[in-house]
């Protein structure tokens, strides 16, 4: 089943929800707030959600986007779920490393690997 919402492409397979962020740049406050709200709604739909966030289209992110992800990660964990990130470009991954957020988030290279990790 595939559902298209603004800025997100959502697919659920084998109890894992995969959300592809479709914006190339996640920079401004308005966009980040919209994406954050949409992701929170997905997390609120099911306790213990197994969630993969796919960054394959994303080439730029701001610190506000990182903040939104931290809040999302907490929500997922509080609901007993698991969040795994994947397809993060090297420059964006560098931003995770600089801020030590690579130690906070589970990050996998590709979508299949991330989905397997989220399901485990």
């Amino acid at each position: 089943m595939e559902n298209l919402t603004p800025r997100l492409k959502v697919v659920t397979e084998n109890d894992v929800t995969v959300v592809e962020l479709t914006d190339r740049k996640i920079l401004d406050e308005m966009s980040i707030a919209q994406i954050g709200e949409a992701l929170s709604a997905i997390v609120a739909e099911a306790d213990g959600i197994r969630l993969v966030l796919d960054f394959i289209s994303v080439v730029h992110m701001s610190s506000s986007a990182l903040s939104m992800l931290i809040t999302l990660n907490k929500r997922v964990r509080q609901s007993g779920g698991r969040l795994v990130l994947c397809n993060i470009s090297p420059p964006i991954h560098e931003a995770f490393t600089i801020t030590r957020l690579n130690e906070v988030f589970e990050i996998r290279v590709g979508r299949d690997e991330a989905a397997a990790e989220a399901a485990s």
Partner: protein
Amino acid sequence: MIEKSIPTDLTAARRLTEEILGRAEAVGYGEDDRFAIRLALEEALINAIRHGNKFDHARKVTVSADIGAKRTTITVCDEGAGFDPAAVPDPTVDENLEKPCGRGIMLMRAYMDEVSYNTRGNEVRMAKRRCSGLPRPAGQH
């Protein structure tokens, strides 16, 4: 040299960012350099609009960008009271790792070669050499 005074407005900030990045691309800056400049400029503009001018449309953000063949220098000045950058908590210490704030200045410092503030703390000046590569992780500077 690009010198502009823009309203406290995210759309105006985005337009100016694109103009500066377009100039950098025209001068020959590569993807890594442009990624770094964009990230630092976005963070500086967001800080000026949100924390400096507090979204007050009566206030302006003044930006100057000198994009040379070997080096880019950008200054972003707001009309707020200013702040002490040394007082911003380090987001990479264990107790702050999961706090959703405080990473903008750290990213600016990591991606640019030089970042400094005026005494009042309402103006940031950033410089980057062309082709100086991706930044090093925290603790390796």
